[in-house]
């Protein structure tokens, strides 16, 4: 037996309806409130990350113009921007935010299985954000060692923030990992053990599959970051030499000796590469659902999509050293990691084909969430293709540490997941708030963001090809950089500022629509999955009223041939629909 039958398990759930403001909105154990706390906090710190990027873009586009950006600041902005966006924004938003909101609603559960731990998770996350912000205000400021925090640079004199800045950064990461682990245990256990009757694993929407696998990756990969952070912290604070080699710093011989900086890189990227998929897999899942709902078609190749998620999850642990081709490795390792990197492109490409085939002959509604979802296919394909260049050792050597790399990873794991985040927020906004967002503003937001990011990152590939190195405060006068590249830098900065300003439209839309938006129907997109079938919108504590839902079909019954409506919700039994999609064969 693949599944274990239980009688109605609803009575196992504890229900304590919160009654005071504090228990309802602050120390809430309701997954929906926690999701919004996680999401709000992540978006807040993400906006800080965006402001930091605007600052250093100003310096890059118009060097020697702004006095308030000196080299130290510049490095601090770049480093913190990277760390915020990858860990504190995207990981927290996808898993803490969407994971919390969607898992119980989409699998038909009343809440996460460990609500108290779930609440602890968000508060510990808030603490980690606080420590991160504090690092800007301590003597010496935040760390400026780059988001990868490579030793010996990160704890040697001369780098900004080597006193308290790096210590707070590492502590904040460790605290974040504790928060993530508490949340992650919840997400995994809820998906495995708390689904409603009839919700088999293969009837789950792909959003849940993506978040589920990403959580498993996170639980197994974040320990690598924890281990490297603890050891680096010890090197810094009590003078061990785990990573620190014998060296001179600021003209003096240091106490360190014999450590291996490459060991840190191995540990860091052993976390760092799965991290890419921790961000990407939830985006893959969510975008599959958006495309299917707004194209009124079942997702193409559902089973392939699930298997691709599993394959990507498994392979993501054996590609990490492709970030380290220039760090000095046995050449055979390079060959191995280049091969695995190309292999992981196969399931990923398969997903892209399936998204495009889902759109094929669909009844496409170009609403805001759909625009973002289709935009994602473009940016993700684009960023994925440049990844094939960088995955090859011979091509990576000249391109490494140029703006080509920056353009690549911003397209593939910056812009693409963020487009999905926006699409998902618009898509579920009616369910979360009970109001519709403003469609016109949403479309403006999409087009300005989408075209803005292209005008920012396409030219960046070009200056990368010219060999312009990343992380430089100012290039000065160089022979290999033609005048046009300097002009391009200025234009990219203007694009970046436009994108940043565009996000005001987004914020205006979601805040003003809270009060002024049209009252939303419980299921405005006529979608099939369970979260749209709650008795109340927004769903109340406990989600489902008196009775848990019972599921009779998968989540993708759109435009079933012969069916009366163009969608059949998951809770509709087979007996109530006369015609079905049995192998696509007409009976």
């Amino acid at each position, binding site marked *: 037996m693949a*599944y*274990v*039958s*239980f009688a*109605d*398990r609803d009575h196992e759930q504890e229900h304590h309806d919160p009654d005071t403001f504090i228990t309802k909105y602050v120390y809430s154990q309701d997954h929906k409130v926690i999701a919004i706390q996680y999401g709000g906090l992540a978006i807040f710190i993400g906006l800080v990350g965006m402001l930091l990027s605007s600052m250093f873009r100003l310096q890059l586009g118009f060097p020697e113009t702004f006095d308030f950006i000196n080299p130290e600041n510049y490095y601090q902005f770049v480093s913190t921007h990277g760390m915020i966006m990858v860990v504190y924004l995207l990981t927290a938003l996808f898993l803490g935010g969407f994971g919390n909101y969607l898992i119980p609603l989409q699998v038909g559960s009343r809440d996460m*299985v*460990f609500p108290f731990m779930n609440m602890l998770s968000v508060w510990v996350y808030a603490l980690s954000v606080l420590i991160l912000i504090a690092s800007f205000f301590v003597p010496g400021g935040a760390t400026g060692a780059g988001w990868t925090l490579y030793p010996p640079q990160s704890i040697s004199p001369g780098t900004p923030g080597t006193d308290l800045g790096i210590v707070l950064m590492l502590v904040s990461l460790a605290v974040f990992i504790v928060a993530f*682990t508490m949340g*992650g*245990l*919840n997400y*995994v*256990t809820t998906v*495995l*053990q*708390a*689904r409603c*009757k*009839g*919700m*088999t*694993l*293969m*009837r789950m929407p792909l959003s849940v599959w993506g978040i589920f696998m990403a959580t498993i990756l996170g*639980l*197994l990969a974040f*320990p*690598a970051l*924890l*281990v490297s952070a*603890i050891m680096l912290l010890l090197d810094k604070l*009590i003078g*061990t*030499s*785990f990573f620190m080699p014998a060296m001179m710093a600021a003209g003096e011989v240091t106490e360190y*000796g*014999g*450590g*291996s900086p490459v*060991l840190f890189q191995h*540990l860091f990227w*052993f976390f760092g590469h799965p991290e890419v998929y921790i961000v990407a897999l939830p985006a893959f899942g969510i975008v599959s659902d958006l495309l299917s709902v707004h194209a009124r078609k*079942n997702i193409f190749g*559902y*089973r392939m999509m699930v*298997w691709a998620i599993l394959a990507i*999850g*498994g392979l993501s*642990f*054996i590609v990490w050293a492709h970030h380290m081709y220039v760090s000095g490795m046995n050449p055979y390792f390079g060959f191995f990691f280049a091969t695995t990197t190309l292999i992981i492109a196969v399931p990923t490409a398969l997903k892209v084909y399936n998204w495009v085939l889902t759109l094929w002959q669909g009844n496409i509604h170009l609403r805001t969430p759909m625009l973002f979802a289709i935009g994602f296919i473009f940016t993700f394909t684009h960023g994925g293709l440049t990844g094939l260049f960088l995955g090859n050792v011979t091509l990576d050597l000249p391109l490494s540490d140029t703006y080509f790399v920056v353009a690549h990873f911003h397209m593939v794991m910056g812009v693409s997941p963020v487009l999905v985040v926006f699409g998902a927020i618009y898509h579920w906004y009616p369910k979360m708030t009970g109001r519709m967002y403003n469609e016109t503003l949403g479309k403006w937001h999409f087009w300005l963001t989408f075209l803005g990011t292209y005008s920012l990152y396409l030219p960046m590939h070009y200056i990368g090809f010219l060999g312009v190195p990343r992380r430089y405060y100012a290039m000065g006068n160089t022979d290999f950089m033609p005048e046009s590249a300097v002009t391009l830098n200025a234009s990219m900065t203007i694009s970046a500022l436009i994108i940043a300003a565009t996000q005001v439209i987004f914020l205006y839309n979601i805040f003003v629509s809270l009060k002024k938006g049209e009252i939303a129907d419980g299921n405005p997109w006529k979608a099939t999955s369970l979260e749209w079938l709650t008795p109340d919108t927004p769903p109340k504590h406990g989600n489902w009223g008196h009775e848990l839902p*019972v599921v009779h079909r*998968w989540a*993708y*019954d759109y435009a079933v041939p012969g069916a009366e409506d163009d969608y059949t919700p998951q809770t509709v*039994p*087979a007996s109530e*629909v006369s015609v*079905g*999609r049995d192998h696509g064969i007409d009976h």
Partner: protein
Amino acid sequence: MYITLILLGVIMATIIWWLLRQTLSVQPWVSQTVDDEVSGASIDANKKTVGLITFLAVAASVFALFISAYTIRMEEPDWRPLTEPTLLWANTIVLILASIVYHWTRNAAIKGNDARVKPGLTIAGALTVLFLIGQVVAWQELRAIGAYAANNPANGFFYLLTAVHGLHMLGGLWVWARSTMKVWTGAGADSVRLSIELCTVYWHFLLLVWIVLFGMLLST
């Protein structure tokens, strides 16, 4: 990184193999009324058990990564092996006893034998505390002969690994303290049975981790 890779390979392979088995023969687009009767959980176990097993995978990943880092750092020429205090042998025996007593208490709790649960829990906890005290004494012995963490990476790893293991032990003791309090304030074995069962698994896990770590420290 081979050790980590092997462990994570086993964990990931198990997860993916299990998930694949759930999905291979299913065609979710076909309405299958047999699926309609399927409900709730994928694994025949309490949700807390599933949560604990998941956490053990995370903790195993942490220790495997430390062990990988240890073996990689060991290859650098400045590595001077540390002579571990003999006290560690005694500590190991105490931890083994703690695990055995916990298991004995677990059996008693399952049978509903209240009379054995109370002393069993208390002794298991006391032995664990004794183990932790022993570890701290071992630290003191090393400090007394001048083997500080910063002197050599082998020393650094010794303090680090024992500290991380000890912290996990402390986390276990916190759960232990809660169920022990309950038992001493008159609650029956039934109310703490699950907690005791899960703690037993956790104690065995940490014993296994300690034996692996101790073996590695001794042999290098």
